[in-house]
């Protein structure tokens, strides 16, 4: 029998870890968690290595029935968490007993939350990672009625902190300022546009997903395609229609649009939690 039965899979729940780092030479994206800060926090609070797989949960979360005891943690900016009917706190570890049902019906703040379980999920690595991405993995997200296997089927109650929590330092998620640095094709920008870029308010656009996040503005600029070159999560591309696209974890490993700016992972963490229509501004990093 599986450790966990998936009663509802949720809208977009997927297994992720820190990604598939060394397969760009075969055209494989990095993949992995969008918000590394909260994913690492979830793993840490259940005393896992930060490299362990977690479930990344977007929009509406899953309903999971546990077939044995487990120590779990849900982390993120805000979500409704129920163990049977009892409400649980975010960013706090807690014990789930055999037969309990964990449901995550609503993410109340941000876009995604992370579920980590002590000992980790038992998943086969494909090209060095469990991160779900087709066709490297069979499916791109969790499916209803799928059985989830855990590496540990018992809890060593005496050895573990069963209520670990921290007062989370995630104030920076509330800021609308995202730190950027010059990208490899920064010189492609005119001085005038360069200034405008740093004095404009952008809105998160509809075409935003695990591949990229669209930043919309009133700026008028055109670009052209360049020779196809290296792209990585964090690269900000200027498309021929003048849109800015921040490449996220499932982005292509190469592309032909000018890479005008680059966001740090810390900025990507924050951006991944900004909702459709939310406003942001870009600030040039001082170092």
């Amino acid at each position, binding site marked *: 029998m599986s450790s966990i039965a998936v009663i509802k899979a949720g809208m977009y729940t997927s297994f992720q870890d820190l990604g598939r780092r060394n397969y760009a*030479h075969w*055209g494989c994206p990095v993949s992995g968690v969008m918000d590394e800060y909260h994913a690492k926090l979830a793993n840490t609070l259940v005393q896992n290595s930060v490299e362990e797989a977690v479930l990344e949960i977007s929009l509406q979360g899953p309903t999971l029935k546990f077939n044995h005891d487990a120590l779990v943690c849900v982390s993120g900016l805000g979500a409704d968490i129920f163990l049977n009917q009892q409400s649980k706190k975010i960013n706090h570890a807690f014990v789930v007993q055999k037969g309990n049902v964990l449901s995550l019906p609503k993410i109340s703040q941000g876009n995604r939350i992370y579920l980590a379980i002590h000992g980790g999920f038992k998943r086969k690595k494909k090209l060095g990672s469990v991160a779900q991405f087709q*066709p490297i993995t069979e499916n791109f997200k969790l499916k209803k009625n799928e059985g989830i296997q855990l590496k540990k089927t018992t809890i060593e109650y005496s050895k573990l902190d069963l209520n670990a929590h921290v007062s989370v330092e995630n104030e920076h998620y509330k800021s609308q300022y995202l730190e950027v640095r010059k990208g490899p094709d920064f010189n492609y920008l005119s001085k005038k546009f360069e200034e405008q870029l740093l004095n404009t308010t952008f809105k998160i656009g509809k075409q935003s997903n695990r591949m990229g996040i669209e930043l919309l503005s009133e700026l008028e600029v055109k670009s052209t395609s360049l020779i196809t*070159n*290296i792209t990585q999560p964090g690269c900000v591309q200027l498309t021929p229609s003048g849109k800015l696209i921040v490449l996220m974890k499932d982005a292509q490993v*190469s592309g032909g649009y000018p890479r005008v700016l680059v966001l740090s992972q810390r900025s990507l963490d924050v951006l991944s939690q900004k909702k459709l229509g939310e406003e942001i501004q870009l600030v040039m990093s001082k170092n």
Partner: protein
Amino acid sequence: MSKYNYQIQDFFKLNEQLVIIQFKNEINPIHLKHILQVKKIVQQLFPASYSYNTYTEVGVQFPYFEDLEEKIEVLKREFNAEKNEELTLELPTKTIEIPVCYNQDLAPDLNLFLQQKKMSLEQLIQLHTAPTYLVYFIGFLPGFLYLGGLDKQLYHPRKSTPSPRIEAGSVGIGYQQTGIYPQVSPGGWHIIGKTPKSIFDVHQPKASPFQAGDQLKFKSISIESYKQQINNKSNTFSKLDE
């Protein structure tokens, strides 16, 4: 002139882990040789690093918590042009043969392509199978080959409206490029043939049989042979130089 060897223009720190070595901004088989040579030297300099390339860049990825400024200094010293050493550009290459069936039943754009180019099927097959193509790198989708060497007579603008679904194994032409769709995806290229081979499969010891610098030949096969190979689903590739 660059102050570095191998036509290196600059070194760019993209993030805390990745340095991009930038070469002359031009697609050219000679540059690929430089790029692959540099990749090899970097791997010897930093055995813990991982590197890969595109047309004019080498990405060097370091493990966490390395001082990349220091690494860039090492790279600059290594490739300093004043060392003026003999550049060795010997590369081990293999040529892999890809069977393609050029048939309208498998390639929905074939007849229209022939009409627009005012060309016979025989001419198309001859022009498409004659060159030895160079694999510059793999990108875009897992297993997608960026190939150089398409005959100018086959250049054709991309479709104005991309097709929503192109089958895995489809062989297409888009402007100056030809290539194989490794999996089902939307796309704007004209599909002129289909290979029965799977060119990206994680269940194989090597998910892609190709690496940057390899060569590729297309070989025309009949629809009977295509069907037979689909049924066998064998994934061994003929290497022409073995």
